[in-house]
């Protein structure tokens, strides 16, 4: 029985993640309890809302060093992905500093609106167990205004914009820390594949 801890970062919309795990026949617990998080087989850091607010909640809950010290597979989703990196340009927020990189604001025009909201084709850039069963160019559901640049840790990418498209990281892997900019819990079959790979495929 795989135990899954979803870190309660205070954002709304965590129910949909628990429901998605349930559809895969996995139970999860929403928690800010240190020992529950440390002893879980898998840890998910979700997040909807603003980076500064989420970081101060993690700080107040005494979870900053706990997350930094985790050795089991950890998956950051959307804002949760950005929090795993060094910084975010959103209110110039210092983040957890686990994965090198800075989240920057997506440029907005009427051809490429921000938030980037909707289904985007995603390119697979390097092999990884998290990508098993996915096809290059598959679609995931994105909902964000900030994004991470492409780096050596990038597994998959998406572009934003038409004229001069900006490529950003959709999936990242750094040691045991994995991160998705899109919402796997709302990305139909492809999203379920990513979650299943995280639960069963990575060690």
């Amino acid at each position, binding site marked *: 029985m795989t135990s899954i801890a979803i870190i309660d970062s205070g954002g709304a919309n965590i129910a949909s993640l628990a429901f998605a795990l349930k559809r895969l026949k996995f139970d999860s617990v929403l928690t800010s309890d240190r020992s529950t998080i440390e002893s879980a087989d898998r840890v998910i850091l979700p997040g909807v809302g603003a980076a500064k607010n989420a970081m101060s909640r993690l700080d107040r809950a005494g979870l900053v060093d706990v997350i930094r010290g985790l050795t089991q597979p950890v998956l950051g989703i959307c804002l949760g992905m950005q929090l795993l990196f060094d910084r975010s340009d959103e209110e110039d927020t210092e983040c957890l500093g686990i994965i090198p990189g800075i989240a920057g604001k997506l440029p907005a025009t*009427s051809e490429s*609106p921000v*938030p980037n909201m909707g289904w985007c084709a995603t390119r697979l850039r390097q092999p990884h167990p998290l990508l098993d069963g996915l096809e290059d160019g598959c679609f995931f559901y994105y909902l964000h205004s900030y994004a991470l640049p492409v780096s050596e840790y990038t597994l998959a990418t998406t572009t934003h914009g038409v004229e001069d498209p900006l490529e950003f990281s959709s999936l990242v892997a750094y040691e045991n820390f994995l991160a998705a900019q899109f919402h796997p819990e*709302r990305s139909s079959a492809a999203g379920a594949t990513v979650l299943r790979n995280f639960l069963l495929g990575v060690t």
Partner: protein
Amino acid sequence: MVKGVQFRSHRVVGDILELAERYCHEGADELVFYDITASPDNRSVDRSWVSKVASVLDIPFCVAGGIRTIGDAEDVLNKGADKISINTPALSRPELVTELARRFGSQCVVVGIDSREEKGEYRVHQFTGDVQKTRTTSRTTGDWVSEVQDRGAGEIVLNCMNQDGVRQGYDIEQLRGIRRLCTVPLIASGGAGEMQHFAEVFEKASVDGALAASVFHSAEIPIARLKQYLVDRRISIRPQG
């Protein structure tokens, strides 16, 4: 591509769930649930159905109707909705848009706008859920789009009332005009009758999504066929399934 599921709140939850699963399975990219009686009767939606919908859907969905306070929005989002859409309450108290965006982030906050052309000008309508109470406001649609965007709305659903229900195609001209001043996602609503209408609105008005209710509901346009048609027209859209 967004599917609107419109219902009055006495509709039984089983029906809503069945529809939700059907559209999800057929390849809809997003669902919007409207409780169209909520605003005119000055009361809120019964929200027990939201968690039930959230547990079966693996695509995003938005709840519209009866959200007037931060507490209302929090309730809906905590039950698993991805976005909340406000229309009449935003017109009554525009600060609500600002407050919602600050609390939950712009990505959760959709503003629905009912717009109708009168004497050569597009104007915003209010209380459109009830024919008896529907009224024109003093606002032009363009001004209202700019205002809600400045206040932090993360998406705009523009319902073109002149086109609504007549199935003659989306209001391309109006949507193009709004597109020019809209830097957040813009969803076209009202007027879809044929597959070609969807292609036109993406190609000519550069909208981010197209919403339709009746043509999907009646299965007149099967979602899978529409998607294949749009893919063949080289419109960037998630292929079916």
